């Protein structure tokens, strides 16, 4: 490729000298080369892009060129490589175990296996995903307002919701590209290192898992866009977003445990039905946290032997042969989780959308 470009450049030099000696300038080769390398207006497209996509284009280029995205990308890429390295060095041990029903799922193991030194890919993503979502959205609207560009944008002949929709869509596009690129890189390096190829089922599971990531990060993105509409200062909205994230990932389960302790009556604990009842309440409470929803869904998708997310009695388990669930059944198990996460995202988006549409935007 480089070779071809060099040749073309040489040719261009030659065609430039040709111009100097008064050859007809309008020949097709020169024009083509001008199009390829020249800074003339001929390089600019004469096609009219719809204003919405002009906005999306600008947002994407802003995101991709911003320092915070580069930093987040670096963190995520490094952790991914770290977890891939640990998984690859230990994959042999993991596959040796005879009783493991997931022996066949080598590639899923790559994403989920950890020897304890470094967490696995799915754990990293559930931890860093929110940070990525918050990082991409926390100053979406308020920074435009503070820079005085929002009122200028609103004076253009576009519908007002274009702005907030473009912010959301562009960040979602960036996230999707990021996750699919990372996921497939992970897969590709795994293929080279192990020398096997993934089965179609594994591939579908991995693609579903990547979709799940996008939905999960999309939720945090919507939350942070909502905060950016709600708070005038980007710092406030970033801190609020991070607090929500820390609250759910650290304190929420503690609070649920406290509540469970408070409501459980010790006299009844002897009854297994009551224990199951308590366990169900606890799960129901836990599932209000988006990170719990996400980790349940991803582990079901990536560890096929997970057959239920609720409590199981010994009776139900007796006689069961440990074996992986078929893909359809795994999907059925996580369907409510996906729906709930999308619904939570939608709620956040509406919360951001309605006040933004109604707001009277003054300059700065």
């Amino acid at each position: 490729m480089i070779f071809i470009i060099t040749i073309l450049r040489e040719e261009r030099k030659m065609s430039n000298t040709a111009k100097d000696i008064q050859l007809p300038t309008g020949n097709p080769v020169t024009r083509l080369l001008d199009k390829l390398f020249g800074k003339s207006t001929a390089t600019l497209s004469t096609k009219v892009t719809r204003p919405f996509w002009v906005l999306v284009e600008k947002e994407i280029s802003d995101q991709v060129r911003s320092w915070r995205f580069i930093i987040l990308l670096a963190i995520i890429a490094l952790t991914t490589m770290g977890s891939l390295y640990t998984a690859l060095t230990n994959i042999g041990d993991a596959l040796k175990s005879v009783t493991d029903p997931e022996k066949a799922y080598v590639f899923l193991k790559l994403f989920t296996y950890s020897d304890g030194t470094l967490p696995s890919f799915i754990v990293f993503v559930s931890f860093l995903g929110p940070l990525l979502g918050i990082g991409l959205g926390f100053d979406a609207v308020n920074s435009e307002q503070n820079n005085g560009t929002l009122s200028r944008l609103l004076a253009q002949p576009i519908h007002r919701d274009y702005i907030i929709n473009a912010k959301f869509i562009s960040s979602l596009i960036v996230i999707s590209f990021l996750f699919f690129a990372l996921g497939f890189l992970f897969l590709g390096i795994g293929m080279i290192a192990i020398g096997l190829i993934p089965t179609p089922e594994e591939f579908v599971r991995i693609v579903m898992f990547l979709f799940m990531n996008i939905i999960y990060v999309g939720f945090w993105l919507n939350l942070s866009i909502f905060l950016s509409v709600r708070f005038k200062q980007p710092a406030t909205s970033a801190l609020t977003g991070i607090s929500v994230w820390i609250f759910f990932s650290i304190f929420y389960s503690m609070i649920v445990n406290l509540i469970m302790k408070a409501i459980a009556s010790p006299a009844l604990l002897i009854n297994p039905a009551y224990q199951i009842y308590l366990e169900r309440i606890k799960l129901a409470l836990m599932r209000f946290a988006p990170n719990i929803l996400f980790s349940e869904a991803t582990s079901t998708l990536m560890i096929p032997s997970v057959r239920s997310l609720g409590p199981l009695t010994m009776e139900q388990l007796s006689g069961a042969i440990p074996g992986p669930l078929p893909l359809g059944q795994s999907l059925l198990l996580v369907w409510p989780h996906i729906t709930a996460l999308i619904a939570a995202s939608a709620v956040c988006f509406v919360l951001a959308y309605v006040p933004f549409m109604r707001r009277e935007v003054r300059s700065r």
Partner: protein
Amino acid sequence: MDEIIKLTGLTKKYGEFTAVDHLDLSINKGEVFGLLGPNGAGKSTTILMLLGLTEPTEGSVSVCGIDPISRPVDVKKRVGYLPEDVGFYDRYTGLENLMFTAQLNDMSKAEAYDKATKLLERVGLAEQADKKTGVYSRGMRQRLGLADVLIKDPEVIILDEPILGIDPYGVREFLDLIIKLSKEEGLTVLFSSHHLYQVQQVCDRVGLFVSGKLLAEGNINSLSQQLFGNNAYTVELGISGTTSNNKGTPEDIIKNIDGVISVNSEKGKYLIECSRDVTPEISKEIINSGLNITSLNKKEYGLDDIYYHYFEGGTKNE
């Protein structure tokens, strides 16, 4: 008359507070109209309603024959709006900022580039076109803002406090630029300001705005006529020497001139209030009476006087 902007009974209330109170105003095509008033008089709110950026509580707006409340996008296609203290994307150059706006107005990249470079030249920013707007000075930003407004080929441009925070020289340059461009393109210009003097220089007509009400409108002369009635002119006269041929004191001489209402002497100068411009007669009479004129100065009432007059009126009414 070709009315391009028409407001009838326009009212905007924020809770109990009435920002704009039953405003009736029409602006003709090709006119330069100055919306004048102190801070918080409701100028910006009126402008926002013109663009459909906020909904009026009562009344109706029509811009280019379109209702901006039901069809804001169509209005925004025809109206360029420069907000107060406009901001640009600091990461981008002036040229890129303009091209972005142009593309939002349904232009292709190539078209946007051509148009933006031409406009940058016209507003005098051709050399700064490739600098990031983050390093632009205030005056440069305003000029870029003007280019940004003009890039969509508007019929009307609305500028909210366009000269706030620019140095006097810059203000003059900027206003001249607005007027030149608007005359060339046949644009209707509406701008708000509380800088009286500069507005006076460039506006065809002004509207005086105090606490949500339009108190008076018209050109400067008709406003001063409305306000100051017969005492529309004041002449300041300085003389030396003594009167010959027993014509009496200078006061008597001046008082005899037709149109003079009163004469006051103050620190050796005479302040003459008159109903018409009598400066030539005064000078003739004074010279004839053998006195020497050291200074003769016609004071016209400017917007400042009009403004303060209304403020006095406004506070008295309360």
